[in-house]
């Protein structure tokens, strides 16, 4: 099982646990096989992520696509690490923030180039 953000959900995936809204009301039960309608409904309800069966946690995507070569990525990662030096990158939220910021830096740089 693993958490997948709603925008990445696909038809046929199976829920590993119940999907609840903020007040704890059940929207979809665990074991349900998702259909396109389900996914649209989850989006309409503002559900950010769902627990999906058979997915490995953590679902860490690589920082950048293969288009970016290491020579470009490494100095940026070093630079960003310096700025994040007071932050605990072991914390999942901070690790994700770091990844997103690096991604922005890289895509900004390639756009300029």
């Amino acid at each position, binding site marked *: 099982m693993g958490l997948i*953000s709603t925008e990445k959900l696909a038809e046929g995936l199976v829920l590993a646990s119940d999907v609840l809204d903020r007040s704890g009301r059940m929207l979809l039960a665990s074991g349900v096989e998702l259909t396109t309608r389900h996914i649209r409904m989850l989006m309409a309800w503002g559900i950010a992520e769902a627990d999906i069966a058979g997915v490995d946690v953590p679902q860490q995507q690589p920082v950048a696509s293969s288009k970016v070569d290491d020579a470009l990525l490494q100095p940026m990662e070093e630079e960003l690490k310096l700025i994040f030096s007071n932050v605990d990158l072991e*914390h999942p*939220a901070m690790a*994700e923030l770091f990844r997103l*910021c690096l991604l922005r830096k890289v895509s900004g740089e390639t756009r300029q180039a």
Partner: protein
Amino acid sequence: MRRAKPDLEHIVNNATTVYSLPLIHDRLTQAINNPKASFADITTIISEDQGLSFRILKLANSPMFGYHKNIDTITKAATIIGTQQLRDLSLAISVMGVFKGIPEELINMTSFWQHSITCGIVARILATCRREANVERFFVSGVLHDIGQLVLCTAIPEQLAELIMQCRDSGQPHYQAQGEAWGFDHSSVSGEMLSKWKIPQIIAEPVANHHSPSKAVTYPVEAATLHLSDLIAHALQAGCSGETHVPPLAEQAWDLLDIPVSMLSTILKQIDAQLDETMAILFGKEHL
């Protein structure tokens, strides 16, 4: 002899004699709190200030609100956005005006307000995600959270410059260095300024505690939101208010907000769509 330690109360008292909020803010607050005041009374007060109305209308039609450019009068804006919310927006605009003409040797104003506005936008998006009521107050607290730095810029410029340099080299969080050297940091100055201006505690308390959100006992969620927003704004490196590193996360604040990690990427995407235009409206050179 070494310079005397700066005194928080003295600095704030001095600053409030120099910087005062425009009268319109008091009039608006009085009208909103007065049960006898009509809706028209409130919109009239705003409409009388052309510069303010102009910015509020531009803001109401910007991507931040997403009403597709249909709000053409203050009355319409007040109906759709709400009178309290307009008061909060006007507060952000007024305060930005108050600090015009601060010497820029230490902190570049464009950069300072870019950081502040980014923080405000992030706070507003976080609050929207959490389904908070009146998200404009989150925006305002973000825009105002670092005004203490501006006060310090004019009150004790040498001491501030020294610490900024020192932290840039050592990597120590700027607010920590201020706390160690002076016994208080810029967040207390910001908070005290807002309290002196009689800004409601729901905005002043989170601002005063944006580096120590657990100390905000009355409005912990607001303080936690502001704390995280400041951190994200620093991480994005959008503008700078004197701090060159991302401040450490208060994990309690993160736990309190209970936002899924996957939400961060959505939040960052929304910032991009809003930042440039909001910055241009609030800090733009256009005047009426």
